[in-house]
């Protein structure tokens, strides 16, 4: 990973994306995003605009979207900033994709809490579905990426697929989710543990139990 991501061939990309422009709807959105920042500081809008651009590319290609170089340049030009500065932002944040991804971008967390709770099984489920790390499946459906902590450790292990989190996974539930996605259905998001609602403890609270019914003042008991 010591090398820069392999950017797709520039000539082809320019031929395909050189004429990128906002859709009418996104142009409005872009305008309102830029308006959030003071005049002369419109560069601050670079991140939301890049995200918007990535989503538009995604909508056009029926995928999760990525940022071809001409699109980055389009955004940079709109914000009157050097291309390099926008490019730096894109390369810094992993949520911007520099290469095309599939319809579903499966981001499996492999950081310690998830690892301890069985992220290897989740990863195995993905691999058995034909995915390879950093690659898109031939049918263009899935792209698998291993990512670092996504901040959902209470519900480990977790994956993020496009804009949704799927939590408390194991091999079976992960396989189920992938099958559902492949079939074009929308699986249940959030925790996959039927005994949990969100990040609440399984089987009821184990601490601060008195807080369940009322705002209990524990201070005297400490």
């Amino acid at each position, binding site marked *: *990973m*010591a*090398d*820069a991501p392999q*950017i797709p061939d*520039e000539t082809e990309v320019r031929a395909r994306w050189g004429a990128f422009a906002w859709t009418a709807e996104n142009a409005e959105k872009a305008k309102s995003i830029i308006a959030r920042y003071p005049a002369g500081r419109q560069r601050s809008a670079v991140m939301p605009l890049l995200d918007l651009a990535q989503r538009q590319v995604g909508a056009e290609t029926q995928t999760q979207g990525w940022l071809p*170089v001409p699109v980055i340049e389009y955004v940079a030009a709109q914000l009157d900033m*050097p*291309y*390099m*500065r926008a*490019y*730096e932002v894109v*390369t*810094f944040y992993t949520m911007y994709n520099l290469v095309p991804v599939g319809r579903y971008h499966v981001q499996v967390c492999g950081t310690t809490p998830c690892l301890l709770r069985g992220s290897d099984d989740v990863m195995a489920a993905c691999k058995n579905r034909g995915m390879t790390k950093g690659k898109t499946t031939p049918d263009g459906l899935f792209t698998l990426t291993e990512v670092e902590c996504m901040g959902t450790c209470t519900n480990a292990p977790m994956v993020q697929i496009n804009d949704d989190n799927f939590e408390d996974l194991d091999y079976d539930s992960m396989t189920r989710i992938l099958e559902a996605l492949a079939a074009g259905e929308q699986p249940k998001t959030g925790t996959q543990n039927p005994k949990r609602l969100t990040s609440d403890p399984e089987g009821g609270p184990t601490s601060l139990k008195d807080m369940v019914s009322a705002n209990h003042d524990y201070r005297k008991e400490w």
Partner: protein
Amino acid sequence: MPKVTVDGVELDVPQGATVLQACELAGKEIPRFCYHERLSIAGNCRMCLVEVSPGPPKPQASCALPTAEGQVIKTDSPMVKKAREGVMEFLLINHPLDCPICDQGGECDLQDQSVAYGRGATRYDENKRAVTEKYMGPIVKTVMTRCIQCTRCVRFAEEVAGVEDIGAIGRGENMQITSYLERAVASELSGNVIDLCPVGALTSKPYAFEARPWELTKTLGIDMMDAVGTNVRIDARGRQVLRVLPRVNDDVNEEWASDKTRHHVDGLIRRRLDQPYVRKDGALQPATWAEAFEAIKAANAGASVAAIAGDMADCETMFAAKALVNALGGNLLEGRQTGLDYDVTSLSAVNFNTTIAEAENADVILLVGTNLRWEAPLINTRVRKAAWKKGAKVFGIGAETDLTYKVEWLGNDASLVAKLPKAALDALKGAERPMLIFGGGALSVPGVHGAALDLAKSVGAIKDGWNGFNVVHFSAARMGSLMLGYGLPGGIRDVVAAKPKLAFFLGADEVDFTNFADTLKVYVGHHGDKGAHAADVILPAAAWTEKDFTTVNTEGRVQRSDKAVFAPGDAREDWSIFRALADTLGVSVGFDSFDACRAAMVAVVPALGVEGLADYGWAPPKLPAKPDAREIPSPIKDFYLTNAICRASPTMNRCSEEILHGADYAEAAE
């Protein structure tokens, strides 16, 4: 003025000084990589750690920490020593041990500082990170595995060069410095990142594997590629100049140099004239000095003789030629080869009066007919400083070009000088330090010079302690030639009209030689370029690195340059050619040595004897002020190929093809 204590020594430091600057004032050396006094503070290399109390009980980065009253700073405590060793160890984790094959070896900050502050041995036995080379253009060679990510090059590109092409992509361990999409950095100042790079990540491509710094003889010189008068150090080995580096002069070039200044040197060993030639039966034939001199004598020119100075002519050469022409009874001297004929009765009216260093203090600037980025790159950085850092407003008349800062273009019409749009006029009038900069192209349009002087007066550009009227020349010889009287009222047309029988061309290559069909053309120069092709007699002379000389830059600064190497073959220093020729022609030029030549020159023009700004007074002539309504031509067609040395230089040719004409060399370089 906070009072601080550095290693037990109490001292007052200026308000706002950083701890690092305080330590330097106290005479303590603080190691650093990312900190550079001419760039913004990044604070990311952590090499400058010192112990500061009061403050957190840990070492602090001194470059980014402001001094405060009563601070006690320690630079030699065990904590500091340990911190430096630690930082150095981290920096060296991924740095390859390739000093023996690294061009930075011997002048490497990392090498020096690891000897001085490092642990002496490594404890790291994992794999080192490797990074692919990045293409940055024909000047900068990259070995990015050596990069320690100090970001000096990124900050230079953004802040000084104004070309935001270099950046850091990726994050964490995968962060890499690169140019945008690995394209050539389109800046005429890109070579400076080589000097800025504290390690061997960015080195000079033309100079790769040429020499070690300790093999080089270092001579102090003045660059003759443009009229800025960049102070340089000429590094030579044996008889060859291997590189030219800028040296610090805050009044002129700070510590930058343009790519042309740095890399034209490979042209100094190519296409050289190393023996005299005489045209016989229509072709130039090699000859001896005596034969060449006889050929000149045979012209029997009498007093019908002229001298035309080229762009790189130095003062002594021009004086020697003038002495010979005068001794023969002639007085046709001209330096403006391409036909410029602006009024030179007062040199103050054709001088960069504001001075280069003061240019960055201007608050409203009007550029007329000048592509400053090409004509004087290091004046452009000053204007950029005024515009970008200090918020000066810049207006421009002329062809629109990217000058790396925001310019409000008023149109390409010379007559605008006499009738500026109201907004620009009001801005100039309301300015505290207005600056008007006129290029050579602007002065070529009749009437602009007079209108320019009127404009300077009407907007109050000349006041106590501030003279905002500036002419920027691009020819290094210009101010010197005008001081020596190389300026006829009608420019070179007067020379043509006088139909001289004999004319000396002092490295003048841009002249329209067809006008001199009946003249015996003697080319005194060092490169076989346009002038030599057209000449009837060629007298091989010394290039600027091969002679001592005096030169005057566009702001009227008299500077001296020393001889670094000898001219090749039979070529001689210019003054001695005219001295010897005087004997053949039976006249006396009045000097027998270089020192006598210089002394005679100073006797004629005393200002040339004093290094520093010449005082021209302020006495603008009254000139016609009705500029023609026409486009202002640009005198420079190709920044990289402006003179004979550059045209002989493979590096400059490659820069021109690649950066200006879009040729693709990226693959060929691998």
